[in-house]
């Protein structure tokens, strides 16, 4: 079996949650794998991250260079091509950075790209068997990938239970000197922060979150009344923001805010993985939806089959009374 590498994304000196998911996924490819983490960046943060992930990875390759101040995927790709062995298996979290990096990296390594994997069934010879989803998650597929020449595997965030054993006790190697030529034709300029809204949904313990099922802008009021009665805050899924019914700052999901409430009321939300990707900390999830087939019922703790426009006012009244 070829060497398995995991690319670690990190912000402000803290590795992303996916760092532990990647090592868990690697074990599904090869239970005995000595997985190597790659940590790239500049400054003290990189050292911090490298030391932290060493607990979970057999080896950590650290690249700490000024040129790596912001991990632009083009630069990272060049670096990885310079340092990785030809048949390497590279695991990348399928976040917005991983989507930038993975496909091109596979071409440059002349290996196989396996996109947005949600499950790994194992390796049979040179064939890796994985589970993917198509049609916005409406159907799943089994896929085989020939990994003779190595592979770049993008893994869906949250799809693999993190390996929190911290038992690897790995070593950190500073390989900054091997980075090679990193000139690219794309340069990072700045991050434009999303406009800060009137409320911070990430700070609330209880969220009343609305989706397409709210049907009409005026009906947001129905959810607001419930939230007021509960002392909660109203958040929403992407379609509501696209319709401009609520501000972007209220959106939960991978392209919105990441929230860690105690209780999450999903009202008329179907529960796409992009939405669920924004909910962390295993809250108590209540799903209210008139479509019993909605995927939200798979991930919720408690489900109610109802039209939210009928149900929410009833709930609001009852809460006010009690």
């Amino acid at each position, binding site marked *: 079996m070829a060497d398995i590498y995991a690319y670690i994304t990190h912000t402000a000196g803290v590795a992303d949650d996916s760092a532990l998911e990647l090592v868990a996924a690697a074990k599904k490819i090869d239970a005995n794998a000595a997985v190597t983490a790659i940590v790239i960046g500049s400054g003290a943060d990189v050292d911090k991250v490298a030391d932290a992930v060493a607990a979970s990875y057999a080896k950590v390759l650290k690249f700490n260079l000024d040129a790596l101040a912001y991990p632009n995927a083009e630069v990272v790709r060049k670096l990885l091509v310079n340092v990785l062995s030809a048949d390497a298996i590279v695991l990348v979290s399928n976040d917005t950075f991983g989507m930038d990096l993975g496909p091109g990296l596979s071409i440059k390594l002349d290996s196989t790209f396996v996109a947005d994997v949600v499950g790994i069934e194992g390796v049979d010879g040179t064939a890796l068997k994985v589970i993917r989803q198509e049609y916005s998650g409406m159907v799943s597929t089994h896929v085989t990938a020939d990994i003779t020449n190595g592979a770049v595997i993008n893994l869906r965030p949250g799809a693999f239970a993190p390996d929190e054993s911290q038992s690897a006790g790995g070593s950190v190697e500073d390989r900054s000197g091997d980075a090679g030529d990193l000139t690219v034709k794309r340069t990072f300029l700045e991050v434009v922060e999303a406009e800060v809204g009137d409320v911070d949904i990430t700070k609330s313990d209880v969220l009343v979150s609305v989706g397409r099922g709210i049907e*009409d*802008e*005026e009906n947001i*009021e129905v959810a607001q009344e419930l939230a007021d009665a509960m002392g909660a805050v109203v958040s929403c899924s992407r379609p509501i923001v696209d*319709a401009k019914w609520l501000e972007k700052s209220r959106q939960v999901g991978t392209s919105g805010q990441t929230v860690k409430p105690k209780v999450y009321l999903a009202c008329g939300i179907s529960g796409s993985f992009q939405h669920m990707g924004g909910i962390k900390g295993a809250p108590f999830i209540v799903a209210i939806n008139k479509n019993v087939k909605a995927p939200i019922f798979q991930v919720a703790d408690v489900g109610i089959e109802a039209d939210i*426009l009928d149900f929410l*006012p009833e709930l609001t009244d009852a809460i006010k009374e009690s």
Partner: protein
Amino acid sequence: MENALIAPAKYFFLFMPTVIFSILIPLMGVAVFAYIMAIRMAPLVKAAPDSRADRIPQRIYNVVKVWLGQYRQPRYMLAGVVHIVIFAGFLILSIRSCSLVVMGIFENFVMPGFGGLLGDMYNFLKDYAATAVLIACAIAAFRRAVVKPARYAVPTKYGKDHTVEALFVLGLISTLMISESLFEASSVAANTQVGLHAEFLAPLSLAWLFKQGLLSTSVDTLQTLHIAAYYIHDLTFFFFLCFLPLGKHFHVITSLFNVFFMRIDKGTIKPVQHGIKDEELDDLESFGVKRLEDFTWKHILDFYSCADCGRCSDNCPANTVGRPLSPRFISIKGRDLVFKNYPIYPYGTPFKKSEDLIGSIYDEDEIWSCTTCGACEQECPIGIEYIDKIVDLRRGMVDEGMVPQSLQKPLRALEKRGNPWGKMEKKRADWTKDLPEDVTVKDLAKEPAEALYFVDSITSYDDRMQAIGQATTAILSRAGADVGILGKQEKDSGNEIRRFGEEMLFQTMKEMNTDAILNSGAKHIITADPHAYNALKNDYQGLPPVEHISQFIARNVKSGALRLTGANGDSKVYTYHDPCYLGRHNDVYDDPRAALDAIAGLKRVEMERCRDRSFCCGGGGLMLFYEPEEDQRMGVLRVEMAAAAGANVIVTACPFCLVNMEDAIKVAGLEGKMEAIDLAELIAKHMA
């Protein structure tokens, strides 16, 4: 006849015979007027064609009723009556004014036919007419300057206030009335003083009052007054004539023509281009109105004719709820653009090249805001059209791809699946699965039936509205009708597709439905959806007769085929909401009410806005998908109107009205206090 005063035709002013002015003023007036009118004609000539020369007797009837009879004026009582007085006075006094012009040259001119008794009677009448007009002007000026009714106000985004122009014109009219009366009174006063035969003046008329006041004035002064009054009248008259085509008082001239050419058919939409058949549409270079001259000449005549009375916008539900649409300013902005692009002054200024209307004088949201309810057209006293203009502008936007994202999705779904939700065709008849056992409806694809029930999309697919389909079928079945449906062969009727400007998609729906209906062999069509009713009846051609379920109910209750139980003292108070496409667009007002009244003991009240004044629920079809900017919902206002009428049940006869009303009841917080029900549902509940 001998007179104490020298007539203008004979008078000398500082050795100058004033007859020169009597000739020059009309000559110059008419020349300037002709020049202005020629420029005003130019855009009409360059505009798109319009077929309006048909059904002349009907058009003459319209002129007599709407123009001469001022039929729509009293819908606003005070303003209407004031206008009728001024209008009638104008008609009467126009003869006098014309005579006066000629009398400035030929002293003893008498309008042919006005020599004998008729002339005396006329003179008597015109004295009072002038008096009445003056009083009416005073009331109108008071309203304009002091009362300031809200409908005359000009929101800042639409430009300057129009009060000054209105007052100026009222001043001109008053000047005409006063000068005419003074001219006459001065002569009579002089004759009376010197003992000559004096014309009889109608007692207490303006001229009579002046005469009484001038009896002791010296003849010299009277002479001056006489000549001055004459030329003030002459100048004012021709100034007024040339002033009319410069602003909103153009309607004084154009309204006659506008009414003559006004639309006759109800519920229809103009063809993309008059003279182009549906099958030739593909050959057209461009669709709809994009620039000024793409409007038809009648629609530009509409712009000229708008009197700025504000009745359209006062009744427009979109305007009322704060959407960015005010039909009055569709006309006024249009007229201002015509005036700007076809300048009168200075002489010889070239006409301007037209720009795109959307983005310059009209906005996309403004044009999408219209629900095509027709309240504006119902109200306009001189037959200005709005729906066709809005639809033409939408056609232009659709042709350029300017369609809001919220509407693109349902339009694509209609193209692919024949319904705006993109639901599968094979599920179109799923609502029939829940029919009671004793109710049958045939599948016309499998077996023929006498009647076709055209269900349309919302009733086929919407969970709540399927109940209307089931109730309708139950009624038809109970009345013994042999009825079937088209099932998956049925497509959306396309009423709103057409009115949202997607003509080719509408044509596709129309062709598919027409084929399916004709192949089914059904002898007549029944529908419970007024939008389908309107489309099949007015937009489609060559179909069997179409009936709305309310008409079917009224007919069968009358014949005894349907028997209804009583209301049994349900202690509810019902009110009927007229759906736009049943009422205003198709004049079906009485049948639904007759159907309701056939339920013995049912207590029914009318809302203040009922029948042809009905207030749109918010719009149907694609309007359900459009997300307008608005301060409140039309439906909420409507529900509040029902509450104000003392009703606690709103009965309507349209699935879209029901959607909007039920939503509005929730939004208005009237749940438990107010309910909405479809007529078919209510009747089905009361079938004996």
